[in-house]
């Protein structure tokens, strides 16, 4: 699926390093290179899925795009506006358009605020509604996420996980954003509730023409909801392609292993499929391997992989891979 819409979000060589301080005088002794140079674009109305294992930097990428962290290097554009260059007040006003939905619906709602106050907070903060308008707008928003508006004076603890996630979604939608970062929005929910929330995301996207960055580790759900998928490993994007392309023809050895590790709800599948099981664990982002990040676990790595970082190369229209051996026979055989 190609998307000819205008580019809404452009990320250029984004880096986010967190300093590590040690000792009495809190000297900086190193840094966690959580995001280490990622570039991509998201078109208007599109869903880009961002997948990877814990600690790969996918959530940090989402948060850095929204300028919740001040990036170490790199640029982020919203339409033509460079977010990384904005001062605090213009950036604050920009936040109307860019919103976030968090993973944990228990931690992201203030337990002492009523649902009405939670959903109305962005309206009050930006002065987009006042007086009686607020209640009307809250009712509409609750209807939008299929919650009963009569519950608006209740508190978060009176709601289940799935309902709380709907409250978080209503709050994010309050000021009609165009771009929403969804940071693992369903991983804290039960299986039967996940499908409800995913369907809601899709309905909202159609109704409000939203653009999503959908961060998750559940690869089958990401495939379901995304138009394009980016795979992250240790702070970098190793492969990015259209969703059907990446799931049908993964090229990077890490993507191949990751996809083959997805549990599939089909017992017959396991009678025919051979799994690529990776050895070992993800190295520490404090001290990432030289050259290709994946070489320490890569089944086809060679000496030259340690020397320099491979180029993030477009090997087919819209299909980017960062690997020296992407077209090597070793990689095709597997």
């Amino acid at each position, binding site marked *: 699926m190609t998307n000819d819409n205008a580019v809404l979000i452009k990320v250029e060589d984004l880096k986010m390093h967190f300093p590590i301080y040690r000792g009495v005088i809190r000297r900086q002794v190193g840094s966690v290179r959580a995001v280490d140079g990622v570039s991509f674009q998201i078109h208007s109305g599109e869903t880009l899925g961002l997948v990877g294992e814990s600690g790969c930097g996918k959530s940090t990428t989402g948060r850095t795009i929204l300028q919740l962290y001040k990036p170490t290097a790199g640029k982020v554009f919203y339409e033509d506006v460079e977010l990384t260059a904005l001062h605090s007040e213009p950036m604050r006003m920009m936040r109307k358009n860019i919103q976030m939905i968090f993973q944990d619906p228990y931690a992201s709602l203030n337990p002492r605020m009523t649902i009405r106050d939670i959903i109305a907070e962005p309206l009050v903060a930006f002065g987009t509604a006042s007086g009686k308008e607020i209640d009307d707008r809250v009712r509409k928003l609750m209807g939008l996420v299929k919650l009963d508006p009569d519950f608006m004076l209740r508190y978060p603890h009176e709601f289940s996980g799935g309902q709380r996630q709907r409250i978080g979604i209503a709050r994010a939608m309050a000021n009609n954003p165009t771009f929403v970062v969804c940071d693992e929005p369903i991983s804290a929910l039960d299986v039967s*509730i996940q499908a*409800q929330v995913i369907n809601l995301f899709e309905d909202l996207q159609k109704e409000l023409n939203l653009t999503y960055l959908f961060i998750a580790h559940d690869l089958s759900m990401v495939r379901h909801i995304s138009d394009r998928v980016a795979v992250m490993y240790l702070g970098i994007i190793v492969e990015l392609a259209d969703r059907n392309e990446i799931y049908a023809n993964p090229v990077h050895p890490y993507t191949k292993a990751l996809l083959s590790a997805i549990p599939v709800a089909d017992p*017959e599948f396991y009678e025919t499929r051979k799994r690529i099981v*990776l050895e070992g664990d993800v190295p520490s982002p404090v001290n990432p391997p030289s050259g290709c990040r994946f070489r320490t676990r890569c089944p086809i790595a060679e000496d030259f992989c340690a020397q320099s970082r491979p180029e993030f190369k477009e090997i087919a229209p819209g299909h980017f891979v960062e690997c020296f051996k992407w077209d090597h026979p070793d990689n095709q055989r597997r």
Partner: protein
Amino acid sequence: MANELLNVQGLETQFKTPEGIVHAVNGVSFTLNEGETMGVVGESGCGKSVTMLSCLRLIPQPPGKIVAGKALFKGQDLLAMSSEDIRHVRGAQIAMVFQDPMTSLNPVMTIGKQMEEPLKLHLGFTPQQARSRSIELLEQVGIPRAADRLKDYPHQYSGGMRQRVMIAMALACAPQILIADEPTTALDVTIQAQIVELVIRLREELGMAIIWITHDLGVVASIAHRVAVMYGGFIIEEAQIRDLYANPRHPYTIGLLGSLPQIQEQGRKRLYSIEGMPPMLYQKPHSCPFSPRCRWVTDRCRMENPLLEPVGENHRVACWVDTTTGRER
């Protein structure tokens, strides 16, 4: 394969809470045969963990209470044994692996000490024997440089390695049954795949029976021979693995399988979603616990709770409606 190892009959467990009595398990019966792997699937609060913990009398009493039932392990009722006797079963003949490898290990004891202690206590090993057996066990679960790593503390191990240590400890006394309670839920997919492969390999080497508790229908498809689906403290469907995925009969199982996105899907289909929420179990359900969310619901479902009845070879379902025809049976 037909030798019956564990036979649970009519198990009921309740918890006393300030809000009232929670009826967590409401009459669960199943059998586990030698060498067999049974998956127990359900959402949080469906009673899957409490069922297994009750069998080993590992639920805190009070507030928990096993109200009724039997759990026959090779003919002996685990629920009627003296606490001294059950201690010889637990860990030695039936071992358990828990979900969270981060909290199940003692952070201030070395891995070696934690592994050697039960060997010395349960099996009367000398310190040297215990040490060499620990190394052997760690090697068996694929920990490199096992002898050196005995001196490490749990925080020096990654999540996947800690779960390997937990499995090694569970296997220490060569149990006949391994109960794994969401052992891969806290792990990343590539590490999850490593653990599943490991358990499949160990199962072949050691021939133990496994009860694998999970909410992940994908993981269970890769490891189990037979699956029991739980809802509201009941087993609502039970079948051989291929049969269950190919011909799910209970509306809940059908909904659960339908709500998963297909990895092979090409176009974008809307996910099937089960509306509503799982029940709060403050009273023992007298009607079908799934009836408020069921699209096949009839008057009878709201009055009487169906029993688990056979619908085919090794396939049992608790439902008043035959979902293949849409009519009451």
